[in-house]
């Protein structure tokens, strides 16, 4: 087996030479200076910032606060709206990296909005899959509710699936009592895959002002501190729902990637790690083969088969 095929994975709509992609919101539309630091063609794919129907200005600043082994963000889905993204952002990305699979993260305040964004985005010919963001903790309408009520989540998934011309991954919120119930609901709604986890709702308070640091008060917690929660949820969901999972939540290294695979992942996304290490994605991609060799893992696709085929023997 060649080094290349060791890392290749196949998911609905995503035929990836390696499983590593920047997570939504941490890499813009590829139109930032990270893109000067390595060739985006090295990526397995790219997940772009959330798109909404109308432009969104997002939340008041400050939007960023650091925590121990984590970051709180309350960007609030700032984006120029689906039409500008389709007109100005995606064509540039597509032209520069014609073979780079693009996953479009989409969000909305109502089901109708989600459906409309999904329709336009998936019809563009420039995206390989949608990532249905039903889990943003930083918006006050919709956002999170879609991700915490199984019935609403299922309906939304179904509605989006009906209009989407590309596979739909539903991005789950960890801020729920029972992640498996939500995963089962979106599976019943026809999701092609899952993406997990989004951020955990958190807060920091400034001791001098005695007020929350973030303009939005609460924000989403990401980074290595949340990885054990992500691993647990992916493990639980992968045993209950037969859908591929794009894993995220604190991944910083090849070892972290493999831990996600052993939990049940089929691909991975990297968010917060970029902030310390702009070349986190290519670094991880480079480190994977030798780490796999150490652990006697021949290929990621075999690892997926082993982990996800092995459940009946699991106690």
């Amino acid at each position, binding site marked *: 087996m060649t080094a290349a095929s060791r890392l290749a994975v196949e998911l609905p709509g995503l035929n990836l030479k390696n499983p590593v992609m920047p997570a939504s919101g941490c890499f*813009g539309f590829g139109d930032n200076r990270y893109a000067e630091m390595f060739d985006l063609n090295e990526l397995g794919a790219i997940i772009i910032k959330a798109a909404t129907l109308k432009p969104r200005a997002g939340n008041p*600043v400050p939007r*960023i606060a650091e925590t121990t082994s984590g970051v709180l*963000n309350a960007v609030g889905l700032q984006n120029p709206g689906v039409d500008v993204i389709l007109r100005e952002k995606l064509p540039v990305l597509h032209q520069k990296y014609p073979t780079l699979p693009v996953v479009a993260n989409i969000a909305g305040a109502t089901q109708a909005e989600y459906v409309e964004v999904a329709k336009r985005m998936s019809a563009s010919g420039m995206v390989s899959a949608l990532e249905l963001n039903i889990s943003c903790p930083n918006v006050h309408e919709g956002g999170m509710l879609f991700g915490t009520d199984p019935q609403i989540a299922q309906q939304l998934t179904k509605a989006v699936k009906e209009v989407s011309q590309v596979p739909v991954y539903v991005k789950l919120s960890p801020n729920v009592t029972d992640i498996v119930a939500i995963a089962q609901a979106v599976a019943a709604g026809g999701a092609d895959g899952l993406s997990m986890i989004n951020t955990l709702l958190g807060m920091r308070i400034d001791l001098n002002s005695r007020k929350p640091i973030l303009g939005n008060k609460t924000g989403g917690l990401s980074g290595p501190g949340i990885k054990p929660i992500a691993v647990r949820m992916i493990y639980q969901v992968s045993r209950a729902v037969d859908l591929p999972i794009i894993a995220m939540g604190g991944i910083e290294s090849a070892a972290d990637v493999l831990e996600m695979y052993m939990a049940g992942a089929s691909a991975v996304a990297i968010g*917060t790690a970029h*902030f310390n290490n702009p070349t986190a994605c290519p670094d991880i991609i480079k480190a994977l083969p030798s780490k796999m060799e150490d652990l006697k893992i021949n290929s990621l696709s075999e690892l997926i088969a082993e982990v996800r085929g092995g459940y009946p023997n699991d106690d």
Partner: protein
Amino acid sequence: MRIIAQEELAPSIYRIVLYGKFDYAQARPGCFVMLKLPDGTYQLRRPLAIAALAPLQETITLIYRVVGDGTHLLQQTAVGAQLNILGPLGNGFPIENVESTENVLLVGGGTGVPPLMLLAQALKDKGCKVTTAIGFRTAALIFGEKEFEDNGQLLLATDDGSKGFQGNVGQLLATQPEQTYTKVYACGPNGLLQMVQTRFAGTTAEIYLSLESRMACGVGACEGCVVSTKDGTYNKRVCVEGPVFNGREVRL
């Protein structure tokens, strides 16, 4: 880059000199770097302005105030240690079109002073007449005096009057005769920047304000650091479209 010197300039204010590979050609006054803290605990780099540049010696100088855990750790870091630096970042102060005949004003306070040091030198090199007005809480906290005096005229203010004018920089400027500055560059707390906006609104001076904002990426990827201009809400990212903004457009 390697730390080759670190010294206290004033209580809690440190100058750190870093040696090594850096894109010196791209660095302009007002640009900043994102410094990775030498401890895996921290998820975010720290934005610090470039206070001095020596391309031939291959060094950059940063001046920072110890305010929290990250700057505290930086202060504890020994000479000889390697620091991972991302930069130069940001647009920097626009000085390309400054003529040698121009009369320019620099206004700074607190940790807004360091980028003005590099700016003062660049403007002086262009031959301009540079006036710098900077304010500190008290005399003991003053730094950069010599650098500004070397490059033009320095107007000093201290809140307690222990050195220079007693009061803040705004009050100091109010005592100055109306001057026809062609350009005003400012960096410091929001209050100071607002004062500059107001003070020079009625003049013909071009106003450039360097802003601070909490940053995650520093490279335009996260929308964390945004600011509003008269054209929109949160429509500009401090890390890429800034940190320097047209003072007549930016909303503080």
